[in-house]
């Protein structure tokens, strides 16, 4: 009687455990979003801004790790995809800030020296 009960519990636990293991779906959308933001940072000139370039590289590494973990550890893959997305967004912001600051310097120069071309 006792062993029969144990067997029943064991058989019931297998699908439950499988269901738990696959409760986090593979984060394809998050991964794709991070990759898209990485592309935006690239277009915005992040590779030309050292600190932005560093965060682009970190994003690429996180994306690579997330890809390797996909379907094996989806929770971690999702976490890394989110981190990669943050890195990519930061790279984009840093690139935009650098471009704006450069433009501000040029505008100030033009204001101070109106008859000189700094282009």
């Amino acid at each position: 009687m006792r062993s029969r009960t144990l067997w029943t519990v064991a058989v019931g636990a297998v699908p439950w455990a499988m269901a738990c293991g696959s409760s986090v779906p593979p984060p394809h959308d998050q991964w794709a979003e991070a990759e898209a933001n990485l592309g935006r940072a690239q277009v915005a000139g992040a590779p030309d801004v050292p600190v932005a370039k560093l965060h682009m590289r970190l994003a690429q590494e996180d994306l690579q790790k997330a890809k390797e973990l996909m379907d094996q550890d989806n929770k971690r893959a999702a976490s890394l995809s989110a981190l990669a997305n943050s890195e990519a967004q930061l790279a984009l912001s840093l690139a935009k800030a650098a471009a704006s600051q450069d433009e501000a310097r040029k505008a100030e120069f033009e204001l101070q020296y109106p008859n000189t071309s700094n282009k």
Partner: protein
Amino acid sequence: MNPRYTAIVAVTVLAGAAACSGQRMPPKALVDARADYFRAKDGPAMQLDPTHVHEAEIALDRAEHAWQESPSDPTAIDLAMIADRKALLAEAEAATIQAQREIARARDQIEVNKTSELKTAKGALNQTQQALGQTQMQLQDQERQTATLEAKLREARDTIAKIASVKDDERGMVITLPGEVLYKTGSWDLKPAAMAKLEEIARVLKDKEQPIVVYGFTDSVGTRDNNMSLSQKRASAVRDYLVGKGVPQDLVTAQGKGPEDPVADNNSVEGRAQNRRVEIVVQPKH
């Protein structure tokens, strides 16, 4: 179990847990996230881009909570790093906003300066145009005066040409009168017929306000001194007559040149007659 032993075990476990909890150091990622968040919160990002600072705060709370719940879970580190990146992003966005404001301010000022410069340039242009207009009017007046003078001069020349020989050379307009017409031989007294001619010439020249030089010439017969003296006296006689008829005295001078500058051969009667002459030179007005 003996209740006494149970109490001892419980106290030991709680104390150990408390000790462990107290000694647990936050991971570097979380320490960095806290520092970067507080720097953003206390810096210009809070004024310029509070939304992103708020997002960083939420991310930091989530990271703190994850670390409290599962300090060994690598996703807790990921969350801490995400919170850190959001704080940095808030600062970067604030820097962009600040730079855009500086660009707008500089461009506005450039526009103001350009407008001011344009206004100044327009003012200067107006002044130059006014000055140019005045100069053009003056020039037109001068041209009118010159045209009037030239017309009068032509008229005078035409009038004089009827009674004497008139030509132009580098000295100006030259009126030549033969000596025989003006004087008796060896004299400097003007003949009545000469006076009539000179009166007509004086009438034409008296309003010209141009310098006039009367030159007297002789032929080569006789001594040079006598000829020089005679030519000076004859030139002076003509000058005095012209002045007497209204030509301004300060504009007329007389000069005897004797036998100099002959216009014909002194070896013939006709040539000598041509050389005995008076030239009234009307010089150009300076």
